[in-house]
């Protein structure tokens, strides 16, 4: 399965990155924009995500009904997502619909933002916010980000507070769009079965007239400090505890070691947290993970427990983070690497997964890494690199928050 990489920049500055897989059954295309909740003024927090919804409401040529209908006419698997750091729009289609998919994605990203559609969609956004309020894990995660990042813009919620959504004006959104959506701040990622020259021609035809934007992103130094907060919600049955501590960024070479370390400590099976917390049922769930961000990064953990066991579980988790620095062994590192290697192989077989991975990588690093390079870097990770990583990032300071019935 030889995957072949191509990169080309259109005359308006739009980057196209492609990974061709002649054995794939489909073609996937995604437009990744380097903008998210961290790039919003706090008064319009939530605008990136709301704007993502508005893209599906039509351009000057199409209504929202046209947008949905045309994607369905070509049998596309299509969607969009917004995070703190990027917003992406994608479609996965059979190769015969390559042009339609490219043309339609291009229309999607030139939205009309009609006032009536804006007013209607605002209600849907408020429903989405309400839906997440019924999810204690999500509520706690937002609180964790807010506390951990303090004055840093990563502290802002992706959905935004309901109040800011209610107050948001159509023209504020249009201004935000004009400042962030254009070549210079986005990339077209395409994967699967395709003729690359043909795809470049299509991009030129449908996206070649987009004006360049000069968006910048603030990179203040996060001011981390140790802190702990317990929140009470009497109607809950379980206690949810999360912690966050600094780690390598999405640009940092140590991110590969960080991923291995995260699996050693907190993969859902066979990890240190599994044996110390889940195997014996102290916690129902105990994860430890790695979140690389743009310019900084985090390790985090999440525990779900009976309310009366939450303190015990937290102590075991913290002890385990101290212990791994003393007695990390080669076998557990090798096992974690093998699991990650399988994931790399499986992801490489599905164009949709690769498109997302390549697009995000370009947003963070303006670079491409093949599966072979990822595999080689992974295999070169040693217990020594993990030790070094834990000397550099010692799980301190840590932000800890919990939510439960009191």
């Amino acid at each position: 399965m030889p995957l072949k990489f191509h990169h080309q920049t259109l005359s308006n500055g739009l980057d196209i990155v492609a990974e061709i897989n002649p054995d794939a059954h489909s073609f996937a295309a995604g437009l990744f924009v380097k903008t998210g909740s961290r790039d919003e003024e706090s008064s319009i927090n939530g605008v990136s995500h709301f704007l993502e919804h508005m893209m599906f409401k039509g351009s000057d040529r199409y209504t929202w009904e046209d947008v949905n209908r045309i994607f369905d006419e070509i049998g596309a698997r299509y969607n969009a997502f917004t995070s703190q750091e990027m917003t992406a729009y994608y479609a996965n289609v059979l190769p015969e619909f390559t042009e339609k998919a490219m043309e339609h994605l291009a229309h999607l990203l030139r939205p009309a933002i009609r006032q009536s559609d804006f007013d209607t969609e605002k209600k849907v956004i408020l429903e989405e916010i309400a839906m997440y309020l019924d999810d204690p894990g999500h509520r706690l995660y937002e609180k964790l980000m807010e506390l951990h990042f303090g004055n840093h813009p990563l502290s802002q919620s992706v959905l935004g507070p309901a109040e800011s959504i209610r107050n948001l004006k159509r023209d504020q959104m249009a201004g935000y769009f004009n400042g962030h959506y254009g070549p210079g701040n986005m990339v077209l990622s395409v994967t699967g079965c395709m003729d690359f020259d043909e795809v470049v021609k299509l991009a030129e035809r449908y996206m070649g007239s987009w004006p360049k934007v000069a968006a910048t992103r603030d990179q203040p130094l996060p001011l981390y400090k140790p802190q702990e907060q317990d929140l009470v919600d009497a109607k809950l049955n379980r206690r949810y505890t999360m912690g966050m501590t600094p780690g390598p960024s999405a640009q940092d070479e140590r991110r590969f070691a960080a991923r291995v370390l995260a699996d050693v400590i907190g993969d859902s099976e066979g990890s240190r947290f599994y044996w110390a917390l889940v195997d014996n049922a102290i916690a129902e769930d105990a994860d430890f993970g790695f979140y690389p961000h743009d310019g900084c990064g985090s390790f985090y953990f999440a525990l779900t427990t009976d309310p009366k066991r939450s303190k015990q579980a937290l102590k075991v988790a913290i002890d385990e983070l101290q212990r791994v620095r003393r007695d990390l062994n080669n076998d557990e590192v090798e096992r974690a690497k093998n699991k990650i290697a399988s994931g790399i192989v499986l992801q490489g077989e599905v164009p949709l997964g690769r498109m997302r991975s390549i697009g995000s990588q370009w947003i963070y690093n303006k670079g491409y890494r093949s599966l072979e390079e990822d595999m080689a870097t992974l295999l070169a990770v040693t217990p020594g690199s993990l030790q070094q990583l834990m000397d550099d990032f010692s799980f301190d300071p840590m932000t800890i928050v919990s939510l439960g019935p009191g």
Partner: protein
Amino acid sequence: MGERYFQHTFDNGLTLLAEKMPAMQSAAMSLMIPAGSSTDPVDRNGSATVLSDLILRGAGDRDSHALTDYLDSLGLQRASSVGIHHTRLGCAALAENVMTGLAAYADIIQRPQMPQSGFDAARDLALQALAGLDDDPRQKLLVKLREWHFPSPFGRNSMGKRQDLEKLTLDLCRTDFGRRYHAGSAILAVAGNVDFTSLQKQVQEYFGSWKTGTNDEVRIMPPPGAYHHEPQQSEQTHIGIAYPSITEDHPDYYVVRLAVEVLSGGMSGRLFTEVREKRALCYSVWAGYSSLKTQGSIMGYAGTSNDRAQATLDCLVGELHRLSDGITAEELKRAKTGLKAATIMQGESTSARAGALAHDYFIRGRIRTLDEIKNAVDSVTLDQVNAYLAGHRPGPFTVVIVGPKELRLPE
């Protein structure tokens, strides 16, 4: 069956299915054991779930640590779940590692160690998961909808009942294991870069002596009723609706699948268009076809603010009824394109194919090739769909509400 699909049933009843995907490096395995929640002992609902955890805590010569470490060293990405009819174990990785791991899976389902400490923890975790359901009103709604729609024991919550889990013992679990973990009607499906001859030989070697067996007849009882309100102090009201449909092996199956696609296929589906896009009543709304071996159903969901819940339910039911008036040629064309594209793209994932092979064999007693599905979708006509919809009005409905207030059922 040509050079892509393979099938063999061993003397003990185990059926091996395979799909050869030579362009892949990976393989995926799906093992379905006839130990689903519907065959839990009557007063020990949740036993299958505890067992599905317990069997992974050491098997053959390996204790719990050694077994987990071994599967991890092969890089197997694993999943296990308990459904209505089966307990399912699955894994995916490089093809040769999945083949190597088969022997360990043979130990897991034939020779689990089932230690007392493992049982205590597995039962404790099952009780914790059950307690967590109250914190997740969306999932709770789906559990309650199945409970109120499907005949018992098919509507049971696979997570179990608190009072049943509390009286479960290791001895009862061991007896239950002896009764339900057998090769009779078990299915092992493998998809990916595998050679069927050597696969068959390995499965014969490791699973050939797995004892055979038959399942007890289950006693079927009607569901408790057609309307249920589960009071919950939640931000949103969660609405579930279900009504009976045909089984998956019925000649009109593709007709129904296409009609459901019109209702809730892409974003141009009727529910998304009418409930979300036009009226902005909710963020999440969908309907889907759901199948038991003996009964098909259409199930739908909407989550919405408490003060707009009645309007949402009315709109949802209105759209279900409107389907009887028929669909348009354009709607059918879109539905066909969508279903066919999804079918072809399923061929890009070894895990998706292994799961589909096993499911097909369980429901139909044979594998459907991807070409068969495409042709069957193509051959459905507009007249067929509209005649079917006119002759099968939706209903009777089961409606379940999780939220602070009761809702009124539409006429």
